[in-house]
């Protein structure tokens, strides 16, 4: 609601990648959330987007969630589940019907079932399984790393857990309440799932559950396990000097028909970004730089309604500026100034109009000129932890040597996190990874530099210990000789 999205609009935009229910079934008594007049009429035609159990529990290979997404786009909510299953197809488009169309009486939108679906008793076999196949999860939970090797799925290695024969639901379990385990450390504090504490990386890999190997972590000081999560070393792509761009199912509508498949398609998600979590540990994350028009009041920034932005921004950022690749239009300071000026003259604006992008806040001064961009909490990037794809032990950070992370130019501390922004003059700016880790840059550099001398430290210490050992041995033998002599004299 904060950005002016009703449940109806939310469904139109994001219903393609949810198993429905939730906003598809909500009826709110909040006057601010009541559907607009036209939406109320359309929802009578489209129906509710109810929970679609088949989207997860249908084991038949004919289950087609891409078709589900098509039906959502057509506003065929009450028919979407049938259209997505293997034996149904739906003709007609609810969005194209007149406001007085009666879906129960009319035949403009109709469901047809495949001829051999029903047996002689008019029964149909639903291939429903308790254990959800991986393919059902992939549609909403996939991502594509746009690495230098290419952005095709076949260029990336499969998650080692899946390659080992595990399925998604072997770890991400739930009961009838569908309180699905996410599997992060400390989840039991927030989740009522009774398996939340034990179904984590440690939960299986310290006890060998499900055949999980118990790791030795040879040569890794235990302090690493206090400061890092398992995913920091074992998840996501191997970090390079600059973060990769990643496309995800839900952000980029992967798998949906008719969607732009260019690498530049917005939003630009960066990965992996090593950042400190709320529990103080560093983990691998995906990162997104927010970009929105807002209003600043009492030092807080609130997003402006999309309707207002569309009316305002369109006058400044015309269609000709939009790129066919789906990338950012080339925004300049003049564009921002004009747009902010138009927003400030809008009567419905509460507070000072601002623009957030690229980690900065843009605002006008008293004379109407654009100020220097400044830092603001609302401009901070949004991060969410990642756990997949899991890399095997032989491809985990630190497997080669300590310098995988502890080097003065290593990506773990000194990799570049691209600052994504539509502002042309700021396009090349980067932030160092260490800024997200809550560690001083100089300390990280000095500590990494000390590893140059680590082999010498070992040699010097071992030689000193050897020398001490030899002296101890020498005088120990002398003492032994003395004792033997004394005992012999005693006899």
């Amino acid at each position: 609601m904060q950005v002016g999205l009703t449940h109806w609009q939310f469904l139109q935009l994001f219903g393609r990648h949810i198993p429905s229910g939730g906003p598809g079934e909500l009826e709110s008594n909040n006057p601010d959330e009541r559907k607009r007049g036209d939406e109320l009429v359309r929802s009578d035609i489209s129906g509710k987007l109810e929970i679609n159990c088949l989207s997860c529990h249908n084991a038949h290979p004919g289950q087609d969630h891409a078709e589900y997404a098509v039906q959502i786009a057509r506003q065929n909510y009450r028919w979407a589940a049938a259209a997505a299953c293997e034996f149904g197809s739906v003709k007609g488009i609810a969005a194209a019907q007149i406001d007085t169309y009666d879906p129960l009486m009319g035949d403009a939108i109709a469901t047809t079932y495949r001829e051999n679906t029903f047996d002689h008793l008019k029964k149909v076999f639903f291939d429903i399984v308790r254990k959800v196949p991986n393919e059902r999860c992939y549609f909403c939970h996939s991502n594509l790393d746009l690495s230098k090797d290419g952005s095709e799925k076949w260029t990336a290695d499969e998650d080692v857990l899946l390659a080992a024969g595990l399925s998604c639901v072997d770890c991400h379990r739930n009961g009838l309440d569908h309180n699905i385990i996410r599997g992060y450390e400390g989840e039991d504090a927030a989740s009522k799932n009774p398996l939340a504490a034990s179904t984590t990386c440690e939960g299986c890999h310290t006890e060998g559950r499900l055949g999980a190997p118990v790791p030795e972590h040879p040569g890794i000081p235990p302090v690493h396990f206090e400061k890092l999560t398992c995913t920091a070393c074992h998840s996501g792509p191997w970090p390079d000097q600059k973060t990769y761009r990643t496309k995800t199912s839900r952000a980029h509508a992967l798998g949906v028909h008719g969607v732009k498949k260019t690498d530049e398609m917005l939003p630009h998600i960066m990965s992996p970004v090593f950042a400190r979590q709320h529990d103080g540990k560093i983990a691998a994350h995906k990162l997104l730089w927010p970009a929105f028009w807002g209003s600043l009041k009492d030092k807080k920034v609130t997003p402006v309604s999309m309707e207002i932005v569309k009316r305002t921004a369109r006058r400044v950022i015309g269609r000709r500026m939009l790129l066919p690749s789906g990338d950012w239009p080339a925004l300049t300071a003049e564009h921002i100034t004009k747009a902010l000026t138009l927003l400030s003259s809008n009567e419905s604006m509460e507070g000072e109009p601002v623009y957030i992008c690229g980690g900065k806040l843009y605002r006008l001064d008293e004379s109407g000129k654009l100020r220097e961009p400044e830092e603001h909490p609302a401009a901070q990037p949004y991060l969410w932890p990642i756990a997949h794809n899991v890399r095997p032990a032989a491809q985990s950070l630190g497997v080669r040597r300590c310098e995988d992370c502890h080097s003065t130019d290593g990506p773990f501390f000194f990799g570049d996190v691209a600052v994504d922004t539509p502002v042309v003059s700021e396009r090349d700016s980067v932030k160092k990874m260490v800024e997200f880790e809550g560690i001083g840059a100089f300390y990280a550099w000095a500590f990494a530099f000390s590893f140059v001398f680590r082999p010498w430290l070992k040699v010097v210490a071992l030689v000193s210990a050897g020398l001490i050992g030899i002296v101890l041995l020498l005088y120990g033998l002398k003492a032994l000789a003395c004792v033997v002599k004394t005992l012999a004299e005693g006899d």
Partner: protein
Amino acid sequence: MFRTLSIIGFIVCFMGIAVCCIASPCKGCGWRPGQILRRLVHLFTMLFVEQRLNLIGVLRKLVYLLALLCFVVLAVTGFGPRLFFDKTISGYWLMLHATFAPVFAVCLAVLVVMWASHCRFTGSDWPWLQRLIRRVILAKTVSEKTGGARSGLGRKITFWLIVVLALPLIISIISSMFTLFGTYWQELLLDTHRYIALVLAMVIIVHTYLMIRTQMR
């Protein structure tokens, strides 16, 4: 557990030294301000004023002072985070600790080589050892005249304890830097290093006290 033991250990160590100072003060030592000041000046001159030593003597003294400095830094950086903040050593504390550690190891090795002969146990130490044991078990002793340095035995014992403890101290932490040991053994090596360091620190404190007492005579 380690924190508690460390605090207890250091308290016992310093209290023991204090009791020893009070119970058997060295000749000419007292607790009047003038006497304390004289003692501090004497200690200061031991460190900085030119003394009549040959090259080996000077080297030995320099190495000793460097080792003492390294010990202080290592003790502060090693025990400080745990005792005062109840945290594992990390950050700048760890960097300082790892910088002074090899210097300390080298100084120890040099001192061991230089002083081993001087600190070997001789026949004159035997009566004193017997007397020490009788004192410890509170048996009645007949006073015996003994020749030689009275408190030499204490220094020798602490010296050899330092030598014996230094070896596992160094090996435990260096071996953890190789990819030989998994997490379980890493934690064991770390605990070994911690507890040996605690005992070594107490022994070094006692040894230093005995050295100062000897110099004060």
